[in-house]
Protein backbone atom coordinates (compact mmCIF):
# COMPACT_ATOMS: atom_id res chain seq x y z
CA UNK A 1 0.00 0.00 0.00
CA UNK A 2 1.40 3.41 -0.90
CA UNK A 3 1.59 6.40 1.44
CA UNK A 4 1.01 10.12 0.93
CA UNK A 5 3.03 13.18 1.90
CA UNK A 6 0.60 13.71 4.77
CA UNK A 7 1.38 10.17 6.02
CA UNK A 8 5.11 11.02 6.05
CA UNK A 9 4.41 14.24 7.96
CA UNK A 10 2.21 12.32 10.40
CA UNK A 11 5.04 9.79 10.84
CA UNK A 12 7.32 12.62 12.00
CA UNK A 13 4.62 13.97 14.37
CA UNK A 14 4.16 10.50 15.90
CA UNK A 15 7.93 10.11 16.21
CA UNK A 16 8.13 13.30 18.32
CA UNK A 17 5.76 11.72 20.88
CA UNK A 18 8.17 9.08 22.15
CA UNK A 19 11.91 8.58 22.57
CA UNK A 20 14.45 5.78 22.76
CA UNK A 21 18.06 5.16 23.76
CA UNK A 22 20.60 6.35 22.93
CA UNK A 23 19.12 9.87 22.73
CA UNK A 24 21.45 10.83 19.88
CA UNK A 25 20.16 8.02 17.66
CA UNK A 26 16.64 9.28 18.37
CA UNK A 27 17.60 12.87 17.49
CA UNK A 28 19.23 11.69 14.24
CA UNK A 29 16.06 9.85 13.28
CA UNK A 30 13.89 12.89 14.04
CA UNK A 31 16.11 15.11 11.85
CA UNK A 32 16.04 12.59 8.99
CA UNK A 33 12.28 11.98 9.09
CA UNK A 34 11.57 15.70 9.50
CA UNK A 35 13.74 16.54 6.49
CA UNK A 36 12.06 13.90 4.31
CA UNK A 37 8.61 15.12 5.34
CA UNK A 38 9.58 18.62 4.16
CA UNK A 39 11.29 17.31 1.02
CA UNK A 40 8.06 15.58 -0.03
CA UNK A 41 5.90 18.54 0.97
CA UNK A 42 8.11 20.86 -1.13
CA UNK A 43 8.19 18.38 -4.04
CA UNK A 44 4.39 18.56 -4.22
CA UNK A 45 4.73 22.22 -5.22
CA UNK A 46 6.00 21.02 -8.63
CA UNK A 47 3.10 18.63 -9.08
CA UNK A 48 0.95 19.69 -12.05
CA UNK A 49 -2.17 19.25 -9.91
CA UNK A 50 -0.97 22.00 -7.54
CA UNK A 51 -3.20 25.07 -7.77
CA UNK A 52 -0.16 27.34 -7.34
CA UNK A 53 2.29 25.37 -9.44
CA UNK A 54 6.02 26.14 -9.14
CA UNK A 55 8.53 25.58 -11.98
CA UNK A 56 10.98 22.76 -11.35
CA UNK A 57 14.56 23.17 -12.59
CA UNK A 58 16.64 20.04 -13.05
CA UNK A 59 19.66 21.86 -14.50
CA UNK A 60 21.65 24.96 -13.48
CA UNK A 61 20.94 28.24 -15.32
CA UNK A 62 22.23 28.43 -18.91
CA UNK A 63 24.79 31.10 -17.94
CA UNK A 64 26.44 28.86 -15.33
CA UNK A 65 29.73 27.07 -15.89
CA UNK A 66 28.19 23.61 -16.29
CA UNK A 67 24.60 24.15 -17.46
CA UNK A 68 24.33 20.50 -18.53
CA UNK A 69 25.24 19.09 -15.10
CA UNK A 70 21.93 17.77 -13.76
CA UNK A 71 20.98 18.58 -10.17
CA UNK A 72 20.48 15.66 -7.81
CA UNK A 73 16.87 15.11 -6.69
CA UNK A 74 17.38 16.94 -3.38
CA UNK A 75 19.29 19.80 -4.93
CA UNK A 76 16.69 20.16 -7.69
CA UNK A 77 14.00 20.79 -5.08
CA UNK A 78 15.82 23.46 -3.07
CA UNK A 79 17.44 25.08 -6.13
CA UNK A 80 14.06 25.32 -7.89
CA UNK A 81 12.70 27.12 -4.84
CA UNK A 82 15.78 29.37 -4.62
CA UNK A 83 15.28 30.29 -8.29
CA UNK A 84 11.51 30.76 -7.99
CA UNK A 85 11.46 34.59 -7.76
CA UNK A 86 8.94 34.19 -4.94
CA UNK A 87 10.35 35.60 -1.67
CA UNK A 88 8.40 33.14 0.46
CA UNK A 89 9.53 30.09 -1.52
CA UNK A 90 13.13 31.34 -1.69
CA UNK A 91 13.10 31.31 2.13
CA UNK A 92 11.77 27.74 2.01
CA UNK A 93 14.57 26.80 -0.43
CA UNK A 94 17.24 28.18 1.90
CA UNK A 95 15.72 26.37 4.91
CA UNK A 96 15.50 23.14 2.95
CA UNK A 97 19.15 23.43 1.91
CA UNK A 98 20.10 23.90 5.58
CA UNK A 99 17.85 21.00 6.61
CA UNK A 100 19.41 18.74 3.96
CA UNK A 101 22.89 19.57 5.30
CA UNK A 102 21.72 18.58 8.80
CA UNK A 103 20.07 15.42 7.47
CA UNK A 104 23.31 14.34 5.76
CA UNK A 105 25.18 14.86 9.05
CA UNK A 106 22.50 12.89 10.95
CA UNK A 107 22.52 9.97 8.51
CA UNK A 108 26.13 9.75 7.35
CA UNK A 109 28.49 11.48 9.80
CA UNK A 110 28.13 9.03 12.68
CA UNK A 111 31.51 10.12 14.08
CA UNK A 112 30.20 13.67 14.62
CA UNK A 113 27.97 14.68 17.52
CA UNK A 114 24.53 16.04 16.86
CA UNK A 115 24.83 19.28 18.79
CA UNK A 116 22.21 21.31 20.64
CA UNK A 117 22.23 23.91 17.85
CA UNK A 118 21.78 21.18 15.19
CA UNK A 119 18.61 20.00 16.96
CA UNK A 120 17.22 23.54 17.34
CA UNK A 121 18.08 24.48 13.75
CA UNK A 122 16.34 21.35 12.45
CA UNK A 123 13.23 22.16 14.51
CA UNK A 124 13.23 25.69 13.10
CA UNK A 125 13.59 24.41 9.50
CA UNK A 126 10.63 22.07 10.01
CA UNK A 127 8.42 24.79 11.49
CA UNK A 128 9.30 27.42 8.86
CA UNK A 129 9.01 25.09 5.86
CA UNK A 130 5.64 23.74 7.03
CA UNK A 131 4.20 27.20 7.66
CA UNK A 132 5.51 28.78 4.46
CA UNK A 133 4.60 25.92 2.10
CA UNK A 134 1.12 25.76 3.64
CA UNK A 135 0.82 29.53 3.12
CA UNK A 136 1.83 29.19 -0.53
CA UNK A 137 -0.65 26.38 -1.13
CA UNK A 138 -3.45 28.55 0.25
CA UNK A 139 -2.43 32.02 -0.92
CA UNK A 140 -0.18 31.55 -3.96
CA UNK A 141 2.05 34.50 -4.75
CA UNK A 142 0.65 36.87 -2.11
CA UNK A 143 3.73 38.01 -0.11
CA UNK A 144 4.18 35.95 3.05
CA UNK A 145 2.69 37.49 6.16
CA UNK A 146 1.71 36.25 9.59
CA UNK A 147 -1.05 38.88 9.74
CA UNK A 148 -4.67 37.91 9.05
CA UNK A 149 -5.12 40.64 6.42
CA UNK A 150 -2.67 42.39 4.10
CA UNK A 151 -2.90 45.47 1.89
CA UNK A 152 -1.73 44.70 -1.62
CA UNK A 153 -0.41 47.65 -3.62
CA UNK A 154 -0.10 47.51 -7.41
CA UNK A 155 1.19 50.18 -9.74
CA UNK A 156 -1.64 51.09 -12.12
CA UNK A 157 -1.71 53.20 -15.30
CA UNK A 158 0.23 56.46 -15.13
CA UNK A 159 2.05 55.39 -11.96
CA UNK A 160 -1.09 55.57 -9.82
CA UNK A 161 -0.98 53.14 -6.93
CA UNK A 162 -3.97 50.88 -6.47
CA UNK A 163 -4.41 49.05 -3.22
CA UNK A 164 -6.90 46.61 -1.82
CA UNK A 165 -7.35 44.60 1.35
CA UNK A 166 -6.74 40.86 1.08
CA UNK A 167 -7.74 38.35 3.73
CA UNK A 168 -5.08 35.69 4.23
CA UNK A 169 -6.24 32.08 4.11
CA UNK A 170 -5.05 30.06 7.10
Amino acid at each position, binding site marked *: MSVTTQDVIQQKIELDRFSFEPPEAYERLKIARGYYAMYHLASDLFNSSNKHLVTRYDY*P*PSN*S*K*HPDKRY*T*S*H*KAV*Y*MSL*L*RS*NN*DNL*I*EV*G*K*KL*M*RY*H*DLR*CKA*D*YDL*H*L*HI*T*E*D*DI*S*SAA*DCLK*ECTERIDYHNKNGNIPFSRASKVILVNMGKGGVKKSHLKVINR
Partner: protein
Amino acid sequence: MVTRQPQNKEQILIGVANDLIHSLHAQKGLISFDNTVLKNSKRIADRNKEGDFALYYCVLSLIETTKSNFTEAKRLYDNAMKIDQGRMDILPNYVSLLYRLSELEQTVERATEYLKTNKSCDTTFIKLVYSSFFLLQSAPLITQSKEFIPCSPNGKDLLETSKELIMIIDQIKIDIESIDISVKEYSEFMALLNKFYSMKSHAEFDFRISIKNGLDQYLKMEVFIDVNVEDIVKLNSEFDSFFIDYAIEQDSLDMLGKFLVAFKLKNSRYDGTENPESLYIGVNEEMVA
Protein backbone atom coordinates in the same frame (compact mmCIF):
# COMPACT_ATOMS: atom_id res chain seq x y z
CA MET B 1 49.32 61.78 50.82
CA VAL B 2 49.56 61.92 47.03
CA THR B 3 47.19 64.36 45.40
CA ARG B 4 45.74 63.46 42.03
CA GLN B 5 46.78 65.86 39.27
CA PRO B 6 43.83 67.39 37.41
CA GLN B 7 43.59 66.12 33.85
CA ASN B 8 43.64 68.49 30.92
CA LYS B 9 41.02 68.31 28.15
CA GLU B 10 43.18 66.18 25.87
CA GLN B 11 43.80 63.63 28.63
CA ILE B 12 40.08 63.47 29.38
CA LEU B 13 39.31 62.77 25.71
CA ILE B 14 41.98 60.05 25.62
CA GLY B 15 40.36 58.47 28.71
CA VAL B 16 36.90 58.47 27.11
CA ALA B 17 38.26 56.98 23.86
CA ASN B 18 40.15 54.25 25.75
CA ASP B 19 37.05 53.33 27.76
CA LEU B 20 34.99 53.00 24.57
CA ILE B 21 37.67 50.89 22.84
CA HIS B 22 38.05 48.69 25.91
CA SER B 23 34.28 48.18 26.06
CA LEU B 24 34.16 47.21 22.35
CA HIS B 25 36.99 44.70 22.74
CA ALA B 26 35.52 43.19 25.90
CA GLN B 27 32.17 42.37 24.30
CA LYS B 28 31.36 38.75 23.66
CA GLY B 29 28.24 37.42 21.99
CA LEU B 30 25.68 39.74 20.51
CA ILE B 31 25.98 43.52 20.53
CA SER B 32 24.65 45.27 23.59
CA PHE B 33 25.23 48.77 24.89
CA ASP B 34 24.06 51.09 27.64
CA ASN B 35 22.70 54.28 26.06
CA THR B 36 23.14 56.20 29.33
CA VAL B 37 26.86 55.39 29.36
CA LEU B 38 27.20 56.44 25.71
CA LYS B 39 25.30 59.69 26.33
CA ASN B 40 27.63 60.41 29.23
CA SER B 41 30.69 59.74 27.03
CA LYS B 42 29.30 62.14 24.43
CA ARG B 43 28.62 64.79 27.10
CA ILE B 44 32.19 64.58 28.43
CA ALA B 45 33.60 64.64 24.88
CA ASP B 46 31.51 67.71 23.98
CA ARG B 47 32.82 69.56 27.03
CA ASN B 48 36.44 68.76 26.18
CA LYS B 49 36.56 68.85 22.38
CA GLU B 50 38.97 71.83 22.38
CA GLY B 51 41.59 69.48 23.80
CA ASP B 52 41.97 67.63 20.49
CA PHE B 53 39.36 68.07 17.75
CA ALA B 54 40.53 65.05 15.74
CA LEU B 55 40.26 62.85 18.81
CA TYR B 56 36.87 64.35 19.62
CA TYR B 57 35.48 63.16 16.25
CA CYS B 58 37.15 59.82 16.84
CA VAL B 59 35.26 59.50 20.16
CA LEU B 60 31.97 60.33 18.42
CA SER B 61 32.81 57.72 15.79
CA LEU B 62 33.46 55.10 18.49
CA ILE B 63 30.08 55.89 20.08
CA GLU B 64 28.33 55.27 16.74
CA THR B 65 30.41 52.12 16.18
CA THR B 66 29.25 50.80 19.57
CA LYS B 67 25.67 51.28 18.37
CA SER B 68 26.48 49.57 15.01
CA ASN B 69 25.83 52.82 13.08
CA PHE B 70 28.90 52.21 10.94
CA THR B 71 28.08 54.58 8.08
CA GLU B 72 27.65 57.48 10.50
CA ALA B 73 30.77 56.34 12.37
CA LYS B 74 32.75 56.53 9.12
CA ARG B 75 31.45 60.03 8.35
CA LEU B 76 32.61 61.19 11.79
CA TYR B 77 35.96 59.47 11.40
CA ASP B 78 36.47 61.15 8.04
CA ASN B 79 36.02 64.48 9.89
CA ALA B 80 38.78 63.45 12.29
CA MET B 81 41.10 62.58 9.40
CA LYS B 82 40.36 65.89 7.63
CA ILE B 83 41.50 67.78 10.72
CA ASP B 84 44.77 65.90 10.95
CA GLN B 85 45.70 63.47 8.18
CA GLY B 86 48.97 62.49 9.80
CA ARG B 87 47.38 61.14 13.00
CA MET B 88 48.64 57.56 13.15
CA ASP B 89 47.43 57.04 16.76
CA ILE B 90 43.79 56.96 15.67
CA LEU B 91 44.33 54.92 12.51
CA PRO B 92 43.69 51.46 14.13
CA ASN B 93 40.11 52.54 14.92
CA TYR B 94 39.63 53.54 11.30
CA VAL B 95 40.94 50.16 10.16
CA SER B 96 38.43 48.44 12.49
CA LEU B 97 35.63 50.55 11.06
CA LEU B 98 36.57 49.79 7.44
CA TYR B 99 36.63 46.11 8.37
CA ARG B 100 33.18 46.28 9.96
CA LEU B 101 31.89 47.97 6.81
CA SER B 102 33.49 45.11 4.81
CA GLU B 103 35.58 47.54 2.78
CA LEU B 104 38.20 44.81 2.67
CA GLU B 105 40.72 46.20 0.17
CA GLN B 106 40.76 49.53 2.02
CA THR B 107 41.20 47.63 5.29
CA VAL B 108 44.29 45.84 3.96
CA GLU B 109 45.72 49.09 2.60
CA ARG B 110 45.24 51.15 5.78
CA ALA B 111 46.25 48.27 8.08
CA THR B 112 49.49 47.84 6.12
CA GLU B 113 50.13 51.58 6.48
CA TYR B 114 49.65 51.46 10.24
CA LEU B 115 51.64 48.26 10.82
CA LYS B 116 54.70 49.99 9.35
CA THR B 117 54.70 52.27 12.40
CA ASN B 118 53.52 49.73 14.99
CA LYS B 119 54.63 46.18 14.20
CA SER B 120 52.92 44.67 17.27
CA CYS B 121 49.33 45.91 17.01
CA ASP B 122 47.19 42.75 17.36
CA THR B 123 43.88 44.49 16.66
CA THR B 124 45.12 45.89 13.34
CA PHE B 125 46.96 42.74 12.31
CA ILE B 126 43.87 40.56 12.80
CA LYS B 127 41.84 42.83 10.49
CA LEU B 128 44.54 42.52 7.85
CA VAL B 129 44.69 38.74 8.28
CA TYR B 130 40.95 38.18 7.93
CA SER B 131 40.48 40.75 5.15
CA SER B 132 43.26 39.12 3.12
CA PHE B 133 41.64 35.74 3.71
CA PHE B 134 38.22 37.00 2.61
CA LEU B 135 39.86 38.41 -0.52
CA LEU B 136 41.97 35.23 -0.93
CA GLN B 137 45.09 37.38 -1.25
CA SER B 138 48.19 35.82 0.25
CA ALA B 139 50.68 38.60 -0.67
CA PRO B 140 49.76 41.03 2.17
CA LEU B 141 49.80 38.12 4.63
CA ILE B 142 53.24 36.93 3.54
CA THR B 143 54.71 40.44 3.84
CA GLN B 144 53.08 41.35 7.13
CA SER B 145 53.71 37.97 8.78
CA LYS B 146 57.45 38.58 8.32
CA GLU B 147 57.18 42.09 9.79
CA PHE B 148 54.76 41.46 12.66
CA ILE B 149 56.35 41.22 16.11
CA PRO B 150 53.95 39.48 18.54
CA CYS B 151 54.07 40.90 22.06
CA SER B 152 51.32 38.83 23.66
CA PRO B 153 50.02 35.22 23.61
CA ASN B 154 47.16 36.52 21.47
CA GLY B 155 49.64 38.04 19.03
CA LYS B 156 51.51 34.73 18.81
CA ASP B 157 48.27 32.85 18.07
CA LEU B 158 47.41 35.41 15.45
CA LEU B 159 50.75 34.99 13.73
CA GLU B 160 50.17 31.21 13.64
CA THR B 161 46.71 31.81 12.15
CA SER B 162 48.24 34.04 9.51
CA LYS B 163 50.82 31.38 8.62
CA GLU B 164 48.07 28.74 8.41
CA LEU B 165 46.05 30.92 6.06
CA ILE B 166 49.05 31.54 3.79
CA MET B 167 49.34 27.75 3.43
CA ILE B 168 45.66 27.20 2.57
CA ILE B 169 44.67 30.17 0.40
CA ASP B 170 45.89 28.61 -2.86
CA GLN B 171 44.23 25.30 -2.00
CA ILE B 172 40.93 27.03 -1.26
CA LYS B 173 41.12 28.80 -4.64
CA ILE B 174 41.47 25.42 -6.37
CA ASP B 175 38.75 23.79 -4.27
CA ILE B 176 36.12 26.51 -4.75
CA GLU B 177 36.84 26.51 -8.47
CA SER B 178 35.99 22.79 -8.50
CA ILE B 179 32.46 23.62 -7.32
CA ASP B 180 32.03 26.59 -9.68
CA ILE B 181 32.64 29.33 -7.13
CA SER B 182 34.91 32.11 -8.41
CA VAL B 183 37.27 34.09 -6.17
CA LYS B 184 35.05 37.13 -6.85
CA GLU B 185 31.94 35.28 -5.65
CA TYR B 186 33.79 33.96 -2.59
CA SER B 187 34.99 37.46 -1.63
CA GLU B 188 31.58 38.94 -2.31
CA PHE B 189 30.00 36.36 -0.03
CA MET B 190 32.60 36.77 2.74
CA ALA B 191 32.17 40.55 2.66
CA LEU B 192 28.42 40.07 2.97
CA LEU B 193 28.75 37.66 5.89
CA ASN B 194 31.29 39.91 7.63
CA LYS B 195 28.97 42.90 7.22
CA PHE B 196 26.07 40.95 8.71
CA TYR B 197 28.21 39.61 11.56
CA SER B 198 29.57 43.09 12.37
CA MET B 199 26.02 44.36 12.84
CA LYS B 200 25.35 41.52 15.28
CA SER B 201 28.56 41.20 17.29
CA HIS B 202 31.67 43.18 18.20
CA ALA B 203 33.57 39.96 19.04
CA GLU B 204 36.12 38.64 16.56
CA PHE B 205 35.08 36.15 13.92
CA ASP B 206 35.55 32.51 14.92
CA PHE B 207 34.90 30.25 11.96
CA ARG B 208 35.59 27.04 10.05
CA ILE B 209 35.15 26.39 6.34
CA SER B 210 34.43 23.15 4.53
CA ILE B 211 33.52 22.32 0.96
CA LYS B 212 30.87 19.82 -0.02
CA ASN B 213 31.70 18.30 -3.38
CA GLY B 214 29.56 15.21 -3.51
CA LEU B 215 26.13 15.12 -5.08
CA ASP B 216 25.56 18.53 -3.49
CA GLN B 217 28.15 21.22 -4.02
CA TYR B 218 28.51 24.24 -1.78
CA LEU B 219 30.84 26.02 0.57
CA LYS B 220 29.84 25.71 4.21
CA MET B 221 30.91 28.32 6.72
CA GLU B 222 30.41 27.52 10.40
CA VAL B 223 30.55 30.62 12.61
CA PHE B 224 31.02 29.89 16.32
CA ILE B 225 29.61 32.49 18.65
CA ASP B 226 29.19 32.95 22.38
CA VAL B 227 25.38 33.14 22.64
CA ASN B 228 22.47 30.87 23.61
CA VAL B 229 20.79 28.39 21.29
CA GLU B 230 17.72 30.61 20.71
CA ASP B 231 20.02 33.34 19.38
CA ILE B 232 21.69 30.80 17.08
CA VAL B 233 18.36 29.90 15.46
CA LYS B 234 17.50 33.60 15.12
CA LEU B 235 20.90 34.44 13.59
CA ASN B 236 20.65 31.64 11.02
CA SER B 237 17.21 32.82 10.04
CA GLU B 238 18.18 36.48 9.88
CA PHE B 239 21.28 35.73 7.83
CA ASP B 240 19.27 33.67 5.33
CA SER B 241 16.88 36.60 4.82
CA PHE B 242 19.80 39.04 4.56
CA PHE B 243 21.50 36.84 1.96
CA ILE B 244 18.26 36.36 0.01
CA ASP B 245 17.62 40.12 -0.12
CA TYR B 246 21.16 40.65 -1.39
CA ALA B 247 20.86 37.92 -4.04
CA ILE B 248 17.53 39.32 -5.28
CA GLU B 249 19.00 42.82 -5.43
CA GLN B 250 22.03 41.55 -7.39
CA ASP B 251 19.82 39.36 -9.60
CA SER B 252 21.97 36.40 -8.60
CA LEU B 253 19.62 33.80 -7.07
CA ASP B 254 21.96 31.00 -8.17
CA MET B 255 24.49 32.27 -5.61
CA LEU B 256 22.11 31.20 -2.80
CA GLY B 257 22.81 27.56 -3.60
CA LYS B 258 26.59 27.97 -3.48
CA PHE B 259 27.00 29.02 0.14
CA LEU B 260 25.60 27.85 3.46
CA VAL B 261 26.28 29.63 6.75
CA ALA B 262 25.67 27.86 10.04
CA PHE B 263 25.93 30.00 13.15
CA LYS B 264 26.78 27.61 15.97
CA LEU B 265 27.46 27.60 19.70
CA LYS B 266 31.13 28.04 20.67
CA ASN B 267 31.47 24.51 22.04
CA SER B 268 29.92 22.96 18.91
CA ARG B 269 33.33 23.38 17.28
CA TYR B 270 34.35 20.25 19.21
CA ASP B 271 31.72 17.98 17.67
CA GLY B 272 34.15 15.19 16.80
CA THR B 273 35.57 16.89 13.71
CA GLU B 274 39.19 15.94 13.12
CA ASN B 275 41.47 18.94 13.80
CA PRO B 276 38.56 21.03 15.12
CA GLU B 277 40.65 24.20 15.41
CA SER B 278 41.48 24.21 11.68
CA LEU B 279 40.09 27.12 9.70
CA TYR B 280 39.66 24.97 6.62
CA ILE B 281 38.75 21.33 6.95
CA GLY B 282 38.89 20.58 3.24
CA VAL B 283 36.65 18.95 0.70
CA ASN B 284 34.03 16.38 1.59
CA GLU B 285 33.54 14.26 -1.52
CA GLU B 286 31.25 11.69 0.01
CA MET B 287 28.58 10.75 -2.53
CA VAL B 288 25.48 11.01 -0.41
CA ALA B 289 21.87 11.30 -1.47
